[in-house]
């Protein structure tokens, strides 16, 4: 810190209120910069048309390079002194960049800009020296920085987004270092909700060119869905799946109040998908006076920014609904996206994402819905259809059993889309360089499903006494697939191998995952670390375990009472026996049969020992 402040990097314009002991790019406290790259494909063409661009607040420093590459000159304002120096150092060889450092309140640019990017919204613009300025005031000042015809990319965090609803902390009890004056508490000028935000935009004389709901977090959006897509019923299945995937990656291993995937699905079903999105990204333009030609509207679409947990695998692509026929997917031009990526036996050929796919639902979603609805007939139909479909892609494995290879090893229910009774891969770019027995792939699929079912405490149509292992076997038995204990072990190893490659795990972590999956097969394995831990789901799980415990106790009590009953019976029988043995008639009988008993017992002894000998010789010969 001292070293950095002592040796200032030249080319930084200090505007006042710069924070010397703070960083949003390398945060030790606070929420950090906006690092979701999902907006980059949208910003690229805008920067290409802009002569001057202003980035307000801390963003992923890579964004600066992206915008400079498009030929726009870039000014950036950050409040942290060390962040400003990092950015200036990183681009010291590049022309066309001006780095400003200080509080937004002190920033008086001499020019207007063709493009203003503020994806963190008005947050993280003010400094400790100036205190927080009202939302409305900052919005007005930002608007005034736009040149006529200029565009503003504004991020607005939804105070009632899914990410906030599931948060275990309330803003009222935020004692974090960045909460010196929490803006979202009692801030009258912040637009309450989406409708008011849109009214405010219109009121300021700006035109909305496009509005996106972004997931899973305001700080790190990885998925952006255009407003009209939320309203298209055909798109719902895919949108639900992508939002759920974004949440399970973004919240992996975190404690939340409730599973964000379930909540999002409910929000979408009730037409509140956009209203409950964690972040809104609005593209606004300032009309040119006395001109009819507006700026071209953005194509309604869906941008998937980062779709894998480790950056190496991640690819950015767009999905555009094409009328009745389905989605058209296009990856964004990028040198790295063209080549085949591989780690161990796991591969990804992102080029395969390009092309059309049908509208439809993820098998996993549908299967879960039918399970919860206790519709066994439909579950059976789906399971059979899925197993049959996978069966058509089998090859002969090394042991002669049917096996899967390549893409279809990844055909787990969460990567299979189903429409009109047909099945297809949702993301065909992943593949496995090797074979895996069909039964192992199926075991992995249904084990994951069964574990999720039990950990979520979800309703299902089977006896509640079944554990995950038994549920897996039961579901597979629906399609007449029998599995062995060996299949269960191999499935756990395959799961860990894939997870290790995709999540960039160390061999130790991979081994831990195997043992965690096999930890206690009778209760459904222990929780895997990359699961989202919802409090509500935990309560359901506690309730299920309580039921299990009650059942087990009931069984113990029942057995206990049977035992007591049998013991009483035994006592009665012993007494009878005693009475008989001490009777005169018994003693008389014993005395009369005594001469016969001795030779009889000798004979029995001889017979027993010869039988034992012949048994032993048989055993050694085998």
């Amino acid at each position, binding site marked *: 810190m001292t070293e950095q402040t002592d040796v200032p990097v030249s080319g930084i314009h200090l505007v*006042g209120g710069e924070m010397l002991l703070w960083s949003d790019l390398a945060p030790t406290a606070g929420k950090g910069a906006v690092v979701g790259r999902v907006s980059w494909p949208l910003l690229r063409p805008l920067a290409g048309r802009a002569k001057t661009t202003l980035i307000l607040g801390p963003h992923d420093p890579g964004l600066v390079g992206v915008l400079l590459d498009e030929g726009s000159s870039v000014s950036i304002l950050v409040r942290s002194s060390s962040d400003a120096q990092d950015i200036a150092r990183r681009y010291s060889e590049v022309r066309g960049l001006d780095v400003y450092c200080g509080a937004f309140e002190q920033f008086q640019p001499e020019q207007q800009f063709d493009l203003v990017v503020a994806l963190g919204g008005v947050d993280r613009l003010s400094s400790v020296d100036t205190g927080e300025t009202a939302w409305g005031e900052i919005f007005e000042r930002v608007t005034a920085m736009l040149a006529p015809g200029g565009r503003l990319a504004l991020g607005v965090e939804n105070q009632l987004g899914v990410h906030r609803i599931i948060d275990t902390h309330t803003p009222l009890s935020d004692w974090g270092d960045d909460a010196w004056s929490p803006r979202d508490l009692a801030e009258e000028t912040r637009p309450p909700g989406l409708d008011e935000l849109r009214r405010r935009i219109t009121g300021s004389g700006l035109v909305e060119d496009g509005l996106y709901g972004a997931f899973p977090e305001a700080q790190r959006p990885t998925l952006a869905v255009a407003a009209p897509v939320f309203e298209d019923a055909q798109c719902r299945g895919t949108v639900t799946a992508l939002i759920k995937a974004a949440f399970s990656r973004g919240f992996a291993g975190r404690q939340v109040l409730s599973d964000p995937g379930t909540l999002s699905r409910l929000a979408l079903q009730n037409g509140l998908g956009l209203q409950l999105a964690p972040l809104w990204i609005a593209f606004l333009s300032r009309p040119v006076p006395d001109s009819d030609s507006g700026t071209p509207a953005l194509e309604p679409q869906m941008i998937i920014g980062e779709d894998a947990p480790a950056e190496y695998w991640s690819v950015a692509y767009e999905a555009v609904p094409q009328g009745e026929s389905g989605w058209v997917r296009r990856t964004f031009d990028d040198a790295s996206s063209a080549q085949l990526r591989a780690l161990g036996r796991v591969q990804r050929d992102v080029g395969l994402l390009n092309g059309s796919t049908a509208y439809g639902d993820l098998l996993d979603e549908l299967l879960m819905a039918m399970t919860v609805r206790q519709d066994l007939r439909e579950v059976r139909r789906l399971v059979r259809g899925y197993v049959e479909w996978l069966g058509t892609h089998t090859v002969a494995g090394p042991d002669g059993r049917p096996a899967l290879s390549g893409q279809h090893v990844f055909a787990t229910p969460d990567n299979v889309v189903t429409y009109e009774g047909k099945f297809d891969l949702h993301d065909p770019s992943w593949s496995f360089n090797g074979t895996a027995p069909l039964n192992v792939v199926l075991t992995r699929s249904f084990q994951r499903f069964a574990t999720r079912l039990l950990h979520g405490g979800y309703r299902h149509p089977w006896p509640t006494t079944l554990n995950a292992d038994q549920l897996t076997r039961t579901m597979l038995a629906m399609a007449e697939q029998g599995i062995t204990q060996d299949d269960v072990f191999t499935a756990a190893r395959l799961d860990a191998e894939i997870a290790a490659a995709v999540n960039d795990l160390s061999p130790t972590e991979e081994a831990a995952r195997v043992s965690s999956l096999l930890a206690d097969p009778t209760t459904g394995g222990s929780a895997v670390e990359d699961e989202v831990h919802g409090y509500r789901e935990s309560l359901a799980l506690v309730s299920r375990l309580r039921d299990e415990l009650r059942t087990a106790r009931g069984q113990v009590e029942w057995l206990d009472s049977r035992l007591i009953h049998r013991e009483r019976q035994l006592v009665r029988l012993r007494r009878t026996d005693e009475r008989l043995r001490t009777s005169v008639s018994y003693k008389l009988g014993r005395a009369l049969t005594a001469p016969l008993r001795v030779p009889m017992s000798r004979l029995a002894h001889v017979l027993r020992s010869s039988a034992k000998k012949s048994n032993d010789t048989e055993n050694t010969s085998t």
Partner: protein
Amino acid sequence: MARYAGVDERNPPRILGYLQHGWNILDGFAVGTNLLPGLAKFVWSDGPRRRGWSMGRRDYMVVGAPWNYLLALEPEPAPERKGTIWYPFHGWEGQQILGDHNRLIAQIREVEVGPVTACLYFNEFRNPLLRRIYEEAGFRVISHGVRGRSYQGTDPRFLYKQLAELRRHRRVASNRLGSAIFYGISMGCEPSVYGDPMILQEEDPAFGGMARMRRLWPELHGQEIDITAAQEITRVELGQDYLASPAEIREVFGWSKLARADAK
């Protein structure tokens, strides 16, 4: 503060916490102050609280500057003001600063029209050589008293003396923005900040130095300063809106039991 709170002012009790000593552009306390965790930090304004909070410190309470409490106790008499009271920013290295003092005096004579009172820091006031330089320039030379250290030798009448002096002058000036300028502005003096700021060589970089102050409060630098803007900033920096009641001070300073004992 003791007098305001209604406890024994001749033997002021220990405050249960830390009270900000002077105007500060960081967290309210000198860099390296070894603060006991969990003990209350009473600061002048919201700025030090925000900065301290961002550095991971909590237990702040904004009470405003003790100066505000003094003003509440000493209502202003009818003023008859003239001349300028000048507070040279104080340093420690005799020889180095001596040269600078001469240049500073030349600047002061150039700007100020009325009589000038030079108020020196006590260790500079005790230096006869330095005092003579200011006296030879025709200035009246004073000092408000000894700062003291570890509860020893502090002049309890320091602020009273400063109040009396500020009321006598029309202008308050210094080569560096500091408590005295804000005190002056709050008394209705015309402020002025100019001249060689005599930057200390080993100033802690966490403060960001003089330049940082200039960027944050450009309105308060120069020979002619807009009094309305200056009063607005002073209101914020001295925390004039945060005046607590005597009972409140007794409670938060941990003096309520003492006050009750005195009443018996």
